[in-house]
């Protein structure tokens, strides 16, 4: 079973990131606002991942939860440097199982993939890439747990097709 995320999925999550990315560059906000908007969306996604792994009871879930929390902490610090306000943590979530976690991780990969188009700061670009690669690795373990091909794609985009 393949889980393909699209920018529409990100919008459905209420991240607001997709709308930002679709905005014509001529209408884009100043650079710091772009960076802050991307960070706020990513923080919301990381917090959602933390809540999902709290609820999931997956074997490697505690490690992946802690890693997602590390991502959130790093992104919150970066956002606060830009005088931004982090989103509140989400309510506890119901997670159906590994398939739901795969979908969430795939959305995370897609979000950070899209962020490479929007982020302007060198350090943030590299931080986002390091986090994206970690979520891509989570996918390997999750897929192996249900007998799927752990690394099916040579270009890992979270299903985003340009």
């Amino acid at each position, binding site marked *: 079973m393949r889980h393909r995320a699209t920018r529409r999925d990100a919008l459905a999550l209420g991240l607001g990131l997709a709308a930002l990315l679709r905005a014509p560059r001529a209408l884009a906000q100043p650079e710091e606002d772009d960076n802050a908007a991307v960070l706020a969306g990513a923080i919301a996604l990381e917090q959602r991942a933390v809540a999902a792994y709290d609820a999931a009871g997956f074997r490697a879930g505690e490690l992946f939860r802690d890693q997602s929390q590390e991502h959130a902490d790093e992104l919150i610090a970066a956002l606060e440097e830009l005088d931004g306000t982090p989103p509140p943590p989400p309510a506890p979530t119901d997670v159906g199982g590994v398939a739901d976690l795969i979908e969430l991780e795939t959305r995370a990969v897609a979000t950070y*993939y899209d962020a490479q*188009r929007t982020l*302007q700061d060198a350090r943030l*670009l*590299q931080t986002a890439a390091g986090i994206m690669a*970690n979520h891509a690795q989570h996918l390997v373990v999750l897929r192996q747990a249900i007998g799927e091909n752990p*690394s099916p794609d*040579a*270009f890992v985009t979270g299903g985003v097709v340009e």
Partner: protein
Amino acid sequence: MWGMRNRRDFLRIAGVTTAGGSAALLAACGDDDEGQAGGRGTDTESDRSDAAVLNAALDLEHLAVAAYTAGAGLLRGEARELGGQLLAHEREHVAGLTRAISDLGGAPNETKAAEEYARMFAGLRDQEDVLRFALDLSNTAVAAYIAALPRLASPSLRQTAVAIMSSEAQHISVLLGLLGEPQVPEAFVTGGEA
């Protein structure tokens, strides 16, 4: 394990130790250290710079193709099956980067002669040697792509680079799993383990 000096010697011969690989990418971009993505120079200058960065990455991908090809005969069972898949990925990376460099008007670097690579792989004795060599290559590639990202002026090329980098990160997890080691050791994947 390895039955030779060490893995770094081989990567050093290839000129792609983690620091060297990153340095090669940075050198490919000149002295620009303004720390901002994009917005540098004219389109032609940016294209030339992006092509140089991608060519340094292409060298690593050529090496990875050669390594998996050379090591295939030492792999067995699941490792052989997954190794074949990772080799196919590396070939796709080569094709993607070659196409991107050509689109920029650059000249994609060619793969080295087989005998040049063969010298590097002569010390591979068994499956674990191959897996650990591949692991070091993937870590080196991740570090190189991380270094390259802020140097690429084109947002779409940054996406291409990060998509390949995340593929290499997945290779790391697959290889660590085959070696019986923790598959996701770091929250921020930087390739620094190489």
